[in-house]
């Protein structure tokens, strides 16, 4: 149960950025995984910097710094991406898909050139290596607890941002009706850019955190991308609540099936179920109705 929750939170973390770029803006960003990969490498770089500065004892602090930095790094790459590429392709999701796939290839190769083909080692800071002993046999790793709470917090923040602030209002306005908001004097281009940057930044943070769970290498991103998309699609594009539900659903199912079959079959079953589910509810768990012809 806790397990499922933790898996779900990780999935959701991966999908959060996508829920914004894909969910709200309708941009199929195949390079999302690579943006996460950038976040992971940021963590790696920060760690080394701290090791050089403070040695083995002091380096723990690096993570606190790495989080915002990775957000910034991935975010700015995302910004660049939006400015140069994606903005030319609004309303052409399939083209965007192909172009961003190209971007992902380039990012991978760049990192390979920069850091070598090998995985790099990101160490958990001490304060995340412990475990919380509830009772004999029942104990929660701090790291997983941290991820769960962090994800929850992130979701909460995004909600506040989207639904309680002026910026959020603008974002929603633009994503719902670009032309209309343009008429109302909303700087749509700007908003688009920053929304995308926000999504990308979140990807970066996710990558930064996942570097404590998994490997950090040029092809790391590939391992996450499909899962992330599945979450968003299952949840229903355009609804943040959907992404959350999707994450929980897939996470719980995955752990469930995996526990009584093999990991491979678990994955197969889950994806098959998602596919079938989408037959039954084509627009996901939380469909957003509209009246337009197409």
């Amino acid at each position, binding site marked *: 149960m806790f397990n499922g929750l933790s898996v779900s939170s990780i999935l959701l973390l991966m999908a959060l950025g996508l829920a914004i770029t894909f969910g709200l803006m309708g941009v199929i960003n195949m390079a999302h995984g690579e943006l996460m990969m950038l976040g992971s490498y940021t963590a790696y770089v920060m760690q080394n910097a701290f090791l050089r500065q403070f040695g083995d004892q002091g380096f723990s602090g690096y993570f606190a710094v790495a989080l915002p930095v990775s957000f910034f790094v991935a975010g700015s790459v995302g910004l660049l991406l939006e400015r140069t590429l994606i903005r030319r392709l609004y309303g052409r999701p399939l083209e965007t898909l192909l172009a961003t796939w190209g971007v992902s290839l380039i990012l991978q190769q760049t990192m390979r050139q920069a850091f070598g083909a090998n995985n790099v080692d990101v160490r958990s800071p001490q304060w995340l290596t412990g*475990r919380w002993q509830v009772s004999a046999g029942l104990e929660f*790793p701090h790291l997983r607890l941290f991820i769960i709470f962090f994800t929850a917090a992130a979701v909460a923040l995004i909600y506040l941002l989207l639904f309680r602030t002026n910026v959020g209002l603008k974002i929603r306005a633009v994503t719902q009706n670009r032309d209309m908001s343009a008429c109302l004097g909303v700087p749509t281009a700007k908003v688009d850019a920053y929304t995308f940057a926000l999504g990308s930044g979140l990807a970066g943070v996710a990558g930064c955190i996942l570097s404590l769970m*998994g*490997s950090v290498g040029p092809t790391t991103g590939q*391992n996450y991308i499909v899962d992330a998309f599945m979450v968003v699609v299952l949840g229903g594009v355009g609804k943040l609540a959907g992404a959350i539900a999707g994450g929980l659903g897939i996470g719980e199912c995955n752990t469930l099936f995996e*526990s009584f079959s*093999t990991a491979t079959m678990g994955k197969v079953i889950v994806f098959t179920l998602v596919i079938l589910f989408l037959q039954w509810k084509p627009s996901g768990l939380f469909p957003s109705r509209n009246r337009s012809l197409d």
Partner: protein
Amino acid sequence: MSTNDARPASLGRRAFMRRAAGAAAGAAAANFLPELGYHVMPRAAAAEPIRVGILHSLSGTMAISETSLRDVELMAIEEVNAKGGVLGRKVEAIVEDGASDWPTFAEKSRKLLQRDKVCSVFGCWTSASRKAVLPVFERLNGLLWYPVQYEGNECSHNVFYTGAAPNQQISPAVTWLLKNRGKKFYLLGSDYVFPRTANLIIKAQLKSEGGQLVGEEYTPLGHMEYSTVVNKIRAAKPDVVFSTINGDSNVAFYKQLRNAGITAKDIAVMAVSVAEDELRGIGGGVAEGHYAAWNYFQSVNTSENKAFVDKFKTRFGKNRVTDDPIEAAYFQVHLWAQAVQKAGAITVEAIRKGALGQEFKAPEGMVRIDPQNQHTWKTVRIGQIRSDGQFNVVFSTNGPVRPQPWNSLLYPNRDCNWDLGGTVDKNKS
């Protein structure tokens, strides 16, 4: 004809391309640039160099491991050339990228053999890539030098196996664990051929040596979420996890195992696909105290090894590490050179004959190509992971062990012996 055929061909092809569609010319040119490159260059050299192929994944998921092999093979070739080459001729390597894609491996090996007419190819890592190129080498009668430990069950006239056969890595590891860490085994592997086949052997061995199987699990290559697996392990309470996980997943597995508070003291993980190079990505700290079985560790204490490691680090940077496949890739080049020298010719048949029984003082100690089954006699070692990502050798056979491509428990009557025409089955013959 041998080297000429390709150039007129290319022209013909290019001509055809232009007829096919004007725009084709560009890419066609891109396609045939290398061709011209390859076939002009040798003629320029004084004595025609001996061409060998190097075929590893330089891009894609397997690049992580295979690029190092290319590096060290080129290094070894330079050493050979520095000593004046073989048969008074320089050795020229033609590097190809298998791109972690098995059909590409097949395509490239065909190119190396048919177009570049190389007399030997050093290459491959995964069983999949080896299986993909095997038919090509057998058809076109090429010679493949394969430097990675593998699952056995193979006996090809056209391959020299310089990595460990199961009986030189897996079986001794199991025996050692049973003696030193306990009887209850949990088998965990990536979902592909090597782990599944290896586990067949291990299960057979557990039966015969009184071990107990408490769980078996396979995860997809690149799997990242091991929490459920870890829980299963915790529930099964094994003494040992025998891990045949390959690639990225290792990182996730060790990190999450440690995270769940399971250390080497509670449950020991014995890995056969985790070497120094992988540990750089995992972090020694996380995997500290766990084991790996290999024929070579960077920490092996031989003069050859010291020289090898120094050379490697000065050449590729001090933070690079050597490991078993790298070492095998290194010494197989030297074995090959000796073989050619002995053969006195560069026909596949001559080299093959020359290689049989060939010995070399490798960093891991003396290695010897078995004259019957074309695998390699190697010393078996078990290392315990240190926090610095290196190994303490905790067990070592005295002297090289004879390779057995077929496990004696699973295939009691089967053997690979080219004196008797390859795979022999005592039931049938």
